[in-house]
């Protein structure tokens, strides 16, 4: 009963906040509406006893949205997004794709015969998740991590206006880098 009520409250909040993302007219509101939607989804995971995954989802989504708000305000739209602006573009295509995806997923959920459960959940789900990540799924993690890291480094290299030649001279011989702002560790 309580779990049922909690599920419906969280489900309604997540969908309503998701709709709000496109209705509001400010980047900050849209970003944090999305954060609320994700938080509700993370809390819903607690209802199936996935405590670690649920709380980590909340953690990651708040962190991500806090950073994303900064980038959205910086890069989005014609103005620097400090003014009210519409949160939608390519509206017709987006509505068609969104409705189609929803119908496919909902049809799958309703019409596919669900298999009966064969195993039982582990006693400590957090520990078994850790063992899976560090054991049988280690190869996947070992592959994904360098690719993600390389993507981040490549993104920064492409985006940064100043290169190492600007900082250390054409022959890379300068000992103290020439930075517009000195950092905190005396380099």
């Amino acid at each position, binding site marked *: 009963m309580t779990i049922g009520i909690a599920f419906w409250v969280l489900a309604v909040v997540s969908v309503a906040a998701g709709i709000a993302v496109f209705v509001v007219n400010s980047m900050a509101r849209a970003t944090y509406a999305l954060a609320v939607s994700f938080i509700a989804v993370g809390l819903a995971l607690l209802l199936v006893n996935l405590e670690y995954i649920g*709380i980590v989802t909340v953690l990651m989504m708040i962190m991500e949205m806090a950073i994303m708000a900064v980038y959205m305000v910086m890069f989005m739209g014609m103005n620097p997004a400090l003014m009210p602006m519409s949160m939608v573009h390519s509206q017709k295509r987006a509505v068609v794709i969104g409705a189609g995806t929803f119908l496919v997923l909902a049809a799958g959920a309703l019409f596919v015969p669900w298999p009966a459960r064969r195993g039982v959940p582990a006693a400590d789900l957090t520990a078994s998740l850790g063992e899976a990540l560090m054991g049988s799924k280690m190869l996947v993690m070992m592959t994904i991590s360098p690719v993600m890291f390389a993507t981040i480094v490549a993104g920064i290299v492409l985006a940064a206006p100043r290169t190492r030649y600007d900082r250390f001279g054409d022959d890379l011989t300068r000992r103290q880098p020439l930075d517009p702002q000195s950092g*905190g560790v005396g380099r």
Partner: protein
Amino acid sequence: MVTVAAAPWVLPVLVVFVMIALGAAAFDAVLANRRPGALLIPGDEMARLLRQRRRTTVSADSPLWRIGGGGLIVAALLMVVVIPVGGVALTDLSVGVVWFNTMDVAVWALVWLTGWGANSAHSLVGGYRFLAQALAYELPLMFALTAPAVGAASLRLADVVAAQQGLWFVVWMPVAFVVYLIGVVGFSVWGPLNPAAGRDIAGGILAELSGVDRLLVLAGRYALLSAGAAFAVPMFLGGSAGLPWLAGLLPGWVWFTVKWLLLLACLVATRRRIPTIRPDRFVEAGWLVLLPVTLVQLLVVSTVVVLRS
């Protein structure tokens, strides 16, 4: 193991916590004014702010502004609910450490929203400063929180406390302890890490706050500082255990409170003892110094755990 306190205890515990946070404010006032009468300043200030008429700015984003300002104290209260005191806690969450971490990350959003909502340049600069600084303290803080969890092989606070029987984690994880405290000062926008509310930007996130909104943000900072100090006790200082040769003298909750208040006093005092660190300088120090030393600390802890088992 931890007993979960009955529901009627929630309100009294949270009231005591708020009183301690108020005590932290009184202590700071005494340090600032160097006279005992200053103890009453926070009370006076509270009464003044409660009566003050709310000032607003042109096209402020009021909902987000209020959520940001009012949320700080809520985040602090939510941190407190997982802390076991003398074998009793309000909830016995199996991932208490991650829960605390989530609440301190929620502070990112709340402080930025406080800066954003006012629609004022100085506030906004404060909000951005906080995020830049938060990126530099959060990863070291996360790894500092990981160290006791690895040491105890559990994310449950009761297990972390149980693993410290004999030797407190602060003894063999001193670096993690110090980095954790830096993180607490950081997410409380306090002392050396308060450039988000710095005087050079007219108070930053506090610039446009008035009346009860200002009260909530100021109280929220003290509450976060108090919650951070309280959380350090089960994580690093042996929870409610007494000093080895004096343990029987006092009940567990007294030991807990003594450790909590001493740590809180030290954190409050940083404001008057250490100058504000410029965010651009702190960012580099956070990534190039704090993060590597915390990772080395974690490596040491993990090695000890593996060798011991």
